[in-house]
């Protein structure tokens, strides 16, 4: 039994819903009680979809238990088939139905519907949303492409005259999937590579039968597509492109990987100054980004990518790296080790909060959960990964992948921080009366004064203070610009506590400054 306050991932059937909702012509019959219909709002409210997800819930009740839940399932499946006329169906159980063991797959088969029905076994008490999406996609790919598998020992497939790939992994409710796909399709087109099928998002079940026609599979989101891609690789001897093109360096690596695979020349695509990130990062204004302490947390793919961009492309210091996704924990551990860190592998929100607080970052790159943590700690934050929020579906084109994605990342990571030149001027004039301790950053506007003052007080967290500040030290602290004062205060208190200093004097303040100075 696990005590959970907030969860990073929903149950595995929500992953299946993400696949079904992303696809066309597929319907999902889910054996589940009525409350589970809440999942519809993830798609209609958070993603603002204009259609209900293609899901029928049986909504059995206590009085149905032990009597006719199986019959209910059959009726619901038949009715869904008649009403929605899907090309194919997936059927399965939610956590509650798993316990009553009605065997949705068997029941659906017994109906002998004239369409393919793919049964899903998603163990709700072991697995989570991403796993559920990956498993659902894999089962669908197998069900539709499996019959086309060449017999063992067949000769290797001949390459297509025009190189082609499948883009695998984008789903409904995915973090920036909509825009990433457009960006990567464009990039591939420029390279002269055709996209054969993009799936699950936008694909119909019968499109999955065309997956084997491509030369290679691009695993855009390993959390969702890795299992299916491995199976395609084994079964159809397709190549797999594993570089996830997030950030300038990774996008260049991706271009090179694709070009090498097909014997194409990557130079034209690489030569054009595709992203503004490299120049923006080198421009003098960005000097102030140097060594900013960044804590990164998200799904494995986005966390690893963000850490690379933060360290190598923006000159930040990564002080924490972690993921809630245990399936790819190994990759995150390796990425963290390369940065001299120990990865945080946890889906316990409180543990993540503790780790962030202990790392004293200047910036948090995380999920919507970390956004709340950062807000409480008074640290700026940018969102880089699911779980998603309505804000993660911006109206504008805002991919995280490809060269345009790198531009978006620059803005996303840098804007929450103080503007460089502005920070510099504030440093120079910190004694000036207009930069008194209540002044707010000008980019927040005049109204920001009140809002920028104390970070949201955490309504239910007690703050314990065991060190006292002398009046003189307090006065000195106020001379420090407001945007670093919070950190200066925390660092000094930490310094004092670690050394058992009960009274903070001006001396202590400057001792701490030299201790933490960089």
């Amino acid at each position, binding site marked *: 039994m696990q005590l959970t306050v907030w969860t990073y991932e929903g149950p595995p059937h929500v992953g299946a819903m993400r696949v079904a909702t992303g696809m066309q012509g597929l319907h999902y019959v889910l054996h589940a009680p009525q409350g*589970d219909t809440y999942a519809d709002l993830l798609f209609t409210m958070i993603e603002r979809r204009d259609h209900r997800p293609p899901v029928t819930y049986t909504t059995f009740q206590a009085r149905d*238990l032990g009597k006719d839940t199986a019959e209910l399932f059959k009726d619901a499946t038949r009715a869904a088939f008649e009403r929605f006329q899907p090309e194919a169906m997936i059927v399965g159980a939610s956590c509650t139905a798993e316990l009553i063991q009605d065997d949705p797959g068997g029941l659906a088969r017994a109906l002998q519907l004239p369409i393919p029905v793919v049964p899903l076994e998603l163990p709700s008490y072991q697995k989570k949303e991403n796993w559920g999406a990956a498993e659902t996609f894999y089962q669908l790919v197998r069900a539709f492409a499996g019959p086309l598998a060449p017999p063992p020992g067949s000769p290797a497939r001949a390459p297509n005259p025009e190189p082609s790939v499948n883009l695998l992994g984008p789903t409904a409710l995915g973090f920036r999937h909509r825009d990433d796909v457009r960006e990567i399709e464009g990039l591939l087109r420029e390279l002269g590579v055709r996209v054969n099928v993009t799936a699950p998002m936008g694909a119909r079940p019968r499109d999955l039968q065309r997956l084997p026609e491509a030369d290679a599979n691009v695993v855009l989101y390993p959390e969702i597509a890795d299992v299916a891609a491995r199976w395609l690789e084994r079964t159809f001897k397709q190549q797999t492109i594993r570089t996830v093109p997030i950030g300038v360096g990774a996008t260049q690596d991706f271009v090179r990987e694709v070009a090498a695979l097909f014997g194409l020349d990557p130079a034209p695509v690489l030569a054009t100054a595709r992203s503004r990130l490299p120049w923006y990062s080198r421009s003098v204004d960005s000097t102030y980004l140097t060594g900013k302490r960044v804590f990164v947390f998200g799904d494995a793919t986005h966390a690893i990518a963000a850490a690379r961009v933060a360290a190598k492309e923006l000159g930040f210091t990564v002080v924490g790296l972690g993921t809630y996704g245990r399936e790819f924990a190994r990759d995150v551990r390796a990425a963290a080790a390369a940065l001299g860190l120990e990865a945080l592998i946890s889906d316990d929100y409180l543990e993540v909060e503790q780790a962030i607080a202990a790392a004293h970052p200047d910036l948090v790159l995380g999920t919507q959960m970390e956004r709340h943590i950062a807000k409480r700690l008074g640290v700026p934050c940018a969102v880089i990964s699911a779980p998603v929020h309505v804000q993660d579906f911006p109206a504008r084109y805002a991919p995280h992948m490809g060269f345009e994605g790198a531009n978006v990342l620059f803005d996303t990571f840098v804007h929450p921080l103080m503007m460089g030149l502005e920070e510099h001027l504030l440093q120079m004039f910190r004694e000036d009366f207009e930069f008194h301790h209540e002044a707010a950053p000008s980019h927040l506007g005049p109204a920001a004064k009140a809002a920028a003052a104390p970070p949201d007080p955490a309504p239910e967290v007690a703050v314990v203070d065991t060190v006292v500040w002398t009046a003189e030290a307090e006065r000195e602290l106020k001379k420090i610009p407001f945007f670093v004062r919070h950190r200066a205060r925390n660092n000094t208190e930490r310094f004092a506590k670690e050394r058992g200093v009960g009274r903070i004097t001006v001396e202590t303040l400057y001792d701490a400054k030299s201790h933490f100075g960089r």
Partner: protein
Amino acid sequence: MSGATARTVTETGCHDLPVLYERGQHEVFCGLTSIVWLHRKIQDAFFLVVGSRTCAHLIQSAAGVMIFAEPRFATAIMEERDLAGLADMNDELDRVVGRLVERRPDIKLLFLVGSCPSEVIKLDLGRAAERLSRAFAPSVRVLHYSGSGIETTFTQGEDGCLAALVATMSSAAAEAAPSLLVVGALADVVEDQFRRLFDALGIERVGFLPPRRADQLAGIGPKTRYLLAQPFLADTAKALERRGARPIEAPFPLGAEGTTAWLEAAAAAFGVPAERVDSVTEAGRERAARAVERHRPALGGKRIFFFPDSQLEIPLARFLVRELGMEAVEVGTPYLHRAQLERELALLPPGTALSEGQDVERQLDRCQAAKPDIVVCGLGLANPLEAAGMTTKWSIELLFTPIQGYDQAGDLAELFARPLDRRTRLEV
């Protein structure tokens, strides 16, 4: 409608309104959802759902933007090893609760909330609550109720919670003076308004269930008269009656008319003369009438369709039809508790189409065919209906917003007027 006429209840309706009973896919949250407002209301209570990852995800999704530092609710997620019998479920639960109580010394009242999985495996939360109550006495009291989707919808979770609280109310002495118990979670601002009104009416001993703090729970006995402030509290009503309390029959305090009738019923039960009621409520009635009147041009004559959700549908329809001149096309409700809603049903115009239960697909067909001006529905349906050209109002907001009483009558009307107003503004 003037303040004076608004308070006279004329029973124009028919007690036997046609009811369409539906059994198909329900598109309603389960009772766990009510934790989202209950934990804000009872400030030293903690709600621990004993369930699955789905349950945790539901509450989090329903709570939406309301992310608190460390909320006073959590889920003990059952895992494979619990179900496979590798770990003793009760030991595990004790361990989780122990950790929680240690972490949150501010908690005085802990609810173990049952879910579908805990009920299907027949985990006895009643016994667990007793055991844990003993273990943590006297600092923490542990109660239990069901919020499961196989037993409860949405607001019924509050019913279960309050019924559990009733069992722990102290018995009022037989010679105690008569007291009034107002039942159903109300926003603090509304509660305070009502308290002032009861005070002015001279009803002195007034308790509210749920109380703001666990130790403020009122006593109960044969001299207790209870007055429901929410229409979805059938089990709580039964529990109160088992403890000797007697009901005060009234419509619900939505709109000027409902609020007046509700206060009048309480006043009558406590022997307050009608003139006093008149003078005490006059200012409120007038303010409410004025505030409601402002929205009449936008809402009058408009046709409204209710999908079943909060069980507030019938009182809301009554308010919108009688005070704003709307027409109710279909009033869906998850359950029709006739005993609690008799007064409300009597106020609906004859022929009002009611539906109980749900077959969401068929109901969507009816809704499309009826082409109402505004649809009240859950969050899963709202955007798809908007995309199909309908104007919608999310029902969950009706639970999170103060809507009861005179000074909220205008706000309540506005909740329905705003989506219509928005439609007329947009030219995109």
